[in-house]
């Protein structure tokens, strides 16, 4: 099981954590919601929960709970710029379909 960050994503996460002044790392997850069933979660982590798995990528800790890991295995997180908009993008091999806006997906 593995999760990866692109260099751009790792750099950003590191900067955001430094600026925030606290936090162990970045939590990736999925939750059931949205028009197509599942949505991605992207949060700062202040404390670990039971059942969390911690991956480390270029000094950046990525934390995932056991349930989400099933849906996210093999996912790559990138930081991209799209016109004026910029943010994180998930590339998830488990994802079968997504809603028109791309904010929620099915596996």
């Amino acid at each position, binding site marked *: 099981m593995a999760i990866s960050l692109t260099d751009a994503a790792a750099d950003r996460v590191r900067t955001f954590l430094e600026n925030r002044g606290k936090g162990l790392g970045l939590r990736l997850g999925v939750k059931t919601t949205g028009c197509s069933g599942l949505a991605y979660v992207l949060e700062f982590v202040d404390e670990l929960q039971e059942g969390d798995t911690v991956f480390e990528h270029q000094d950046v800790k990525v934390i995932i709970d056991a349930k989400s890991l099933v849906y996210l295995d093999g996912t790559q997180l990138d930081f991209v710029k799209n016109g004026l908009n910029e*943010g994180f*993008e998930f590339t998830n091999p488990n994802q079968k379909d997504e809603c028109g806006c791309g904010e929620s997906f099915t596996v």
Partner: protein
Amino acid sequence: MALLQIAEPGQSTNPHEHKLAIGIDLGTTNSLVASVRSGQANVLPDAQGRYHLPSVVHYGANRTIDVGFDAKANAENDPENTIVSVKRFLGRGLKDINETYGKLPYTFVEKENTVNLLTSQGEKNPIQVSAEILYVLKTQAEQTLGGDLMGAVITVPAHFDDAQRQGTKDAAQLAGIKVLRLINEPTAAAVAYGLDSGQEGIVAIYDLGGGTFDISILRLNKGVFEVLSTGGDTALGGDDFDGKIVQRILANAGVTEELSAKSLRKLADLGRKIKEQLSDVDSVDFNIDIESQQLTGSFSKADFEAVIADLVKATLRSCRRALKDADVEKEQILEVVMVGGSTRVPYVREQVKAFFGKEPLTSIDPDQVVAIGASIQADLLVGNKPDSDMLLLDVTPLSLGLETMGGLVEKVIPRNTTIPVARAQEFTTYKDGQTMMAIHVLQGERELVDDCRSLARFVLKGIPPLTAGIAVIRVTFNIDADGLLSVTALEKSTGVESSIQVKPSYGLEQNEIADMITASMTNAKEDIQARMLREQQIDAVRMMEALETAMTEDNAIVLDEERVVIEQAIEQLKQATQGIDGQAIKQAIKNLDDTSQPFAARRMENSIKRALTGHSVDKV
């Protein structure tokens, strides 16, 4: 796929429900929009990577509306239709504008409460013009953040009065922006530096922009920012620094003839470039052609500092005055925050440091610091950071009150009360059978109506006709989080109600708020004397009226010799009331009270007798 931002723990939002919020610095010269993304507050650049939008709107002949850089390019060719620095006109009357700014290239149309600007596309209200700027910022933010906005925090100068704040809010509404809150510019700057978290004390915000200088002294106390004093100069800024450089170059070159507008613009550009470069180097060489003359030479940092020294000194004089108004010593200042592009000039920083005896805060870009602070507050208000202890409250800049009998002001909400706030006060009727009451809402620190600013008037009708002093009218002042006031009057026995949303007709003149506060201090003694005199006069009139009514009603029980004495005392009091000696009136009132005492006692006895007649003792 949509791009995501990192949320605080447990704060991830559902798809399409992201709590997007922005902070807007709606400036006189330039406007900026900022937002907190992945926990970081940043100014959002436009597609060309520019961080600021010139606050310029151009109404083209072919019904086009340009905003920002495109509009600014038109300022030369089409000045009448290019509205520059519209913020100066917001919430102001024509008289204020003419007095403050003199000759402007616009055709103003006077309206009841405001002015319109006549453009090739018809009359435009300053609120509409501001809305065009806000609309561009909002659209840019939506594109950048990838969704609809929940709302915005917009900053206004600390000295903005109700009319100007309401104008800003109306402009936002017109642009389709939900205003989460208006906050003061110096407060936003302090928030950007995190001065609101965990600190208590007094901070100074030194804001030197392109054309204006503002100094604000704020007190932080448990998340509340009190504006202790404001000061500054509406015609002193970085542009004047450029002007001084140009003057010196022309003087050195011995140029005395009148220059064309084109040459003046070229020189102004040169002045600005020299100023900017001198922040990094010690000397700048220049070479410029004007009117068939070539000016060459070099301008050193020392030359620059020599020409701007007086201007910088003038800002420090304003600082000293603001400290005095706030009744604060320099040593009490916890931090000095630098705002505005002109605070990049090293000499300005040195002088401010020397004046306050403290290294000023300069780590955040001084052009962006206000927008950044606003965005941090906006992020908080939409609930993206729930466990934050940073609860920012604002305060009323001036006291709010009502006119009472005799032209006195009864303060309902005192200055520096934290908002939102609601305060009620009960009033009563002054005359027998009174069925209406005029409510006159005033703003200011002085005791007499004439010295305060009138905000609104309305009439409560349908009060049941009762003896004076029996009806109870409850007047409630309600100020929302943006500092906007609504006033409600309610007669308690009948439930008759009347209310008004205060939208004052004219803006206060630029420094009027500060002047009003100082005036209340310098005139405190006279004001109290004036108040006492008026109060005595009112008491006197009320007493005479009551006594005359009583004597007519109970004519039979007035003894003849008594009548003479009482009438004499009334006459005395009448004369005293004409004068301005409060003490004499007080004495005459007491005299009348004493002489009429036996009559009053007999009257009381009679009425008790009347009341008791026909009732058996055990029922009493």
